[in-house]
């Protein structure tokens, strides 16, 4: 199809940018390591400095991979939600999915003291955290889906998403009020969002979750395209609405919930990237958009993480602050150019 040829060039360019961002991301950090040494360490040649090698392989490379996975996954979940709800402003953060995950995590981290010996502290490991926040995000997602079936108005849906966010926020506040300082701190650190501090094992789990989510999305490309016409037309094109909707929701929940579990709630990436991608590719075809969104999301997340690291300084900014500072103006800019906001 000649359509694919037309989009080849931007894909190649994006791929090169991704590679560049990856290299930049791992060559910058709080400890200044010369670029040539970074390259040497990555390509396995003898390093001049053992601690540099340790930093790169055990800190920077996993962090860069985490940024790629998180950026891609969040962007894809944003794309899925925008198509599913046929709403250009849909995204995991806006519709309260991330808040749901936060509630799940909060209950696990802080609620254990309230619920007593049912959960012991040692029980809070990565898997239980991932499960808790995934359950939280799925619950909110299903609530939003049920509400979305009743209200046709896009604005109403967004407001309802915000309200779900408020409710979960309130519950989290109640939990924080009753919990001890140590657990509160643990939760707050989680809620800042972070792409660092993931072990290779955690990365592998994240990879599996995102892989499954992406695979389901790829299998849903055809119904996703049909959904662009609206549900009634999609049905008339032979789409099994119930199944397709179900699988798209599962994929979204896996991606948004899984990522939030490991990296905390990360704002705006899911909302902004699909729109930015549409600016480049100028198509609505999910066969193009899906891979493009994955690459673009990874690039943006790597950049945000590079900034958050504040190269050559010892402090690290919360990643959530950076994505918000970059993401929110993007959304405002898109809203002002109304035409382009049409998804």
């Amino acid at each position: 199809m000649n359509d694919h040829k037309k989009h080849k060039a931007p894909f190649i360019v994006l791929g090169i940018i991704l590679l560049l961002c990856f290299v930049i991301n791992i060559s910058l950090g709080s400890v200044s390591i010369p670029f040539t040494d970074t390259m040497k360490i990555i390509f396995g040649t003898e390093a001049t400095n053992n601690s540099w090698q340790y930093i790169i392989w055990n800190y920077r490379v996993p962090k860069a991979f985490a940024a790629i996975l998180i950026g891609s996954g969040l962007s894809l979940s944003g794309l899925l939600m925008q198509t599913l709800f046929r709403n250009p402003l849909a995204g995991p953060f806006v519709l309260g999915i991330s808040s749901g995950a936060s509630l799940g995590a909060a209950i696990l981290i802080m609620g254990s003291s309230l619920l007593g010996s049912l959960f012991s502290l040692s029980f809070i490991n990565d898997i239980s955290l991932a499960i808790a926040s995934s359950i939280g995000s799925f619950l909110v997602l299903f609530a939003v889906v049920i509400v979305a079936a009743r209200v046709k108005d896009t604005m109403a849906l967004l407001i309802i998403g915000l309200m779900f966010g408020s409710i979960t926020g309130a519950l989290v506040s109640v939990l924080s009020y009753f919990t001890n300082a140590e657990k509160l701190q643990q939760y707050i650190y989680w809620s800042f969002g972070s792409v660092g501090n993931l072990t290779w094992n955690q990365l592998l789990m994240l990879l599996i979750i995102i892989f499954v989510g992406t695979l389901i999305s790829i299998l849903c490309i055809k119904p996703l395209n049909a959904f662009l016409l609206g549900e009634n037309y999609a049905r008339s094109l032979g789409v099994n609405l119930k199944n397709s909707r179900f699988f798209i929701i599962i994929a979204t929940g896996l991606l948004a919930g899984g990522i939030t579990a490991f990296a905390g709630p990360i704002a705006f990436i899911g909302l902004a990237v699909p729109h930015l991608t549409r600016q480049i590719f100028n198509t609505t075809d999910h066969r193009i958009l899906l891979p493009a969104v994955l690459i673009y999301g990874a690039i943006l997340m790597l950049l945000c993480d590079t900034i958050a690291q504040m190269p050559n300084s010892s402090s690290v900014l919360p990643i959530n602050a950076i994505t918000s500072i970059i993401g929110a103006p993007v959304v405002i800019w898109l809203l002002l150019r109304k035409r382009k906001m049409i998804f």
Partner: protein
Amino acid sequence: MTAIVGINGIGKSTLLRTLGKVQPPLSGEILVNKKPLEHYTPLALASEISVVLTEPIASKNLTVLELISLGRQPYTNWIGSLDEQDRHKIKAAISMVQLEALQHKKCYELSDGQLQKVMVARALAQDTSIILLDEPTSHLDLYHKVHILKLLKHIAHETKKTILYTTHEIEIAIQLCDKMLILEKDRSSFGEPCELIRQQSFERLFPSDTITFDPTSGSFKII
């Protein structure tokens, strides 16, 4: 080609949408090729019935070509790539409705009338034996109304398709349709337009103190 006519709120769209399985039936049974409608899988039905609805499409960011290509979905593979035959059908649909000049435009750049033509083309690309259209010509000017309806009639006769559409343009329908269905509160009449005129079915459609029907010219007169 059959037109469904009747006053506002009598249930033209409801009937059409029920026939297209867009909404569940209130009562009764619908058979397509002697098989109950509910026994069809969505995919099997999609190669039997295509629809053009009055509701706006969700994404106006689609190009005309992309939108019409979506009509081939029931026939494409799991990821929806178009083969030679699909592209041929799409091209044919575009040229039938004379949309060549518009095919790379985005839907938000089109007028309502142009969009209606695109939706008709999409239904044609779906290549089904039954096409249901809900007020397909409401935004078109007289020339394009007649053009689309004549085209549909031609297609219906040429390819032995069943085309069923709802309309308020009764006079055009009388001139162009093979059959007409007049929906009324307590009775409905179905038949060839001339026959319906003879049965004085059109006279009953509107209150006779405002509008009367002239059987010789087949048109309505305002009193």
